[in-house]
């Protein structure tokens, strides 16, 4: 068996070493990654994918640790991908998100991977999407992606998620500006973390004020959840909201599918009705027979004949 086949089989069997190797391929060998993803793709699409973004220091990694514990309590396996920026000057990166998740490392039902952006926004978005697919194919029930919500590239990364959580915390200064610029619109759920701090309610109000500026009618209104990631307070409620959003998406999708199905059926029915009524009328008026004769005698071709008849009919 070739090395890549071994990795593919390993991923599908949930082998942790092979999952890790596969993610390295996704990060560093685009050509190999293409084959790898093509092979595992039929086994993807089962995981629930959650994106968590917000300014550095808001408590994303700490919150993820508590979310993972809650999902584990509910019997789910979890994958975590924590993305941090690469230094634009040296190409190196300090990946410290695991500091907050130490104890999860030895849980067989959890797989955590740190990724650097590698100064290639499009590339990291691709590599992160591939890493999500790898964890999905490996059978993880829930996959959480953490990014620093700063720029457009992070917005691109987080779009791999079905449910996007934008997190903020009091005491981060003007960072609410960063939330306004671009990531406000993509939030399905807002979290105000560090609710143990006194200015938490002010942060909630700021977000509410911004949401009110946007008065478009929407089928889903993003809720604002207060959490204390250090203690886990608010986390079960957050998970409930994620579940609600998941159900909402499913209903939306079902609704969209039934609309599409109804449309196809309606078009079919109209076609049948229109065709038979026009043909009947043409036959009644003997024009149908006449044109048939002309076609047989090569005076006119069938397509032109149809057009002529219909033009008269639809005038």
């Amino acid at each position, binding site marked *: 068996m070739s090395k890549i086949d071994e990795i593919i089989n390993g991923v599908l069997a949930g082998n942790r*070493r092979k999952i890790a190797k596969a993610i390295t391929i996704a990060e560093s060998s685009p050509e190999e990654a293409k084959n790898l993803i093509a092979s595992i793709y039929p086994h993807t699409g089962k995981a629930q994918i959650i994106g968590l973004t917000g300014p550095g220091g808001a408590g994303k990694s700490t919150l993820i640790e508590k979310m993972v514990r809650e999902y584990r309590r509910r019997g789910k396996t979890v994958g975590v991908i924590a993305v941090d920026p690469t230094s634009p000057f040296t190409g*190196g990166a300090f990946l410290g998100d695991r500091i907050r998740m130490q104890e999860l490392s030895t849980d067989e039902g959890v797989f955590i991977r740190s990724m650097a952006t590698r100064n290639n926004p499009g590339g990291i978005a691709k590599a992160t999407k591939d890493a999500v697919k790898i964890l999905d194919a490996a059978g993880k029930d829930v996959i959480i992606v953490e990014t620093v919500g700063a720029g457009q590239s992070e917005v691109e990364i987080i779009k791999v998620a079905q449910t996007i959580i934008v997190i903020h915390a009091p005491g981060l200064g003007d960072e609410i500006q960063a939330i306004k610029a671009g990531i406000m619109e993509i939030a399905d759920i807002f979290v105000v973390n560090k609710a143990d701090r006194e200015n938490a309610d002010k942060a909630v109000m700021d977000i509410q004020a911004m949401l009110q500026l946007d008065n478009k009618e929407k089928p889903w209104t993003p809720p604002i959840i207060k959490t204390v990631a250090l203690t886990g307070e608010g986390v079960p409620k957050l998970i409930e909201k994620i579940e609600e959003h998941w159900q909402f998406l499913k209903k939306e999708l079902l609704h969209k599918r039934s609309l599409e199905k109804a449309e196809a059926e309606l078009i079919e029915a109209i076609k049948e009705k229109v065709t038979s009524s026009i043909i009947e009328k043409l036959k009644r008026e003997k024009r149908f027979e006449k044109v048939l004769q002309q076609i047989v005698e090569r005076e006119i071709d069938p397509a032109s004949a149809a057009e002529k008849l219909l033009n008269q009919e639809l005038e």
Partner: protein
Amino acid sequence: MQSGKKIRVLIAKPGLDSHDRGAKIVARALRDAGMEVIYTGLRQTPEQIVETALQEDVDVIGLSILSGAHLALFPRIMELLRQKGLTDVLVFAGGIIPEEDIPELKKIGIKEVFGPGTPTEMIIKYVLENMQKRT
């Protein structure tokens, strides 16, 4: 190294040390040399260190220890690495490790031991040279 591949390093602190200044200095220096450094904080068990190395698919592990528990903890780490098949990972150590313990550590597979105050350039050079040899 092929162009798309970055050197990934885990800087880990096994045992009960109460600060990690030295480890962080090394971590930052390796980052500034263009590597991706996974840092996991204080008080790691051997199991946590090896699982982290496995999930992060690192090329190098740097173990930093001040407490004097290296002879108790390092053999366990090396044994777990072997059990999990991570035999191609380069492992070095740093911190406070007496001269006379170094042969024992090298015997169990720790490739190099850096004493306190080793210039970070030396560690960078060591890692880069060893990674070069691989390819």
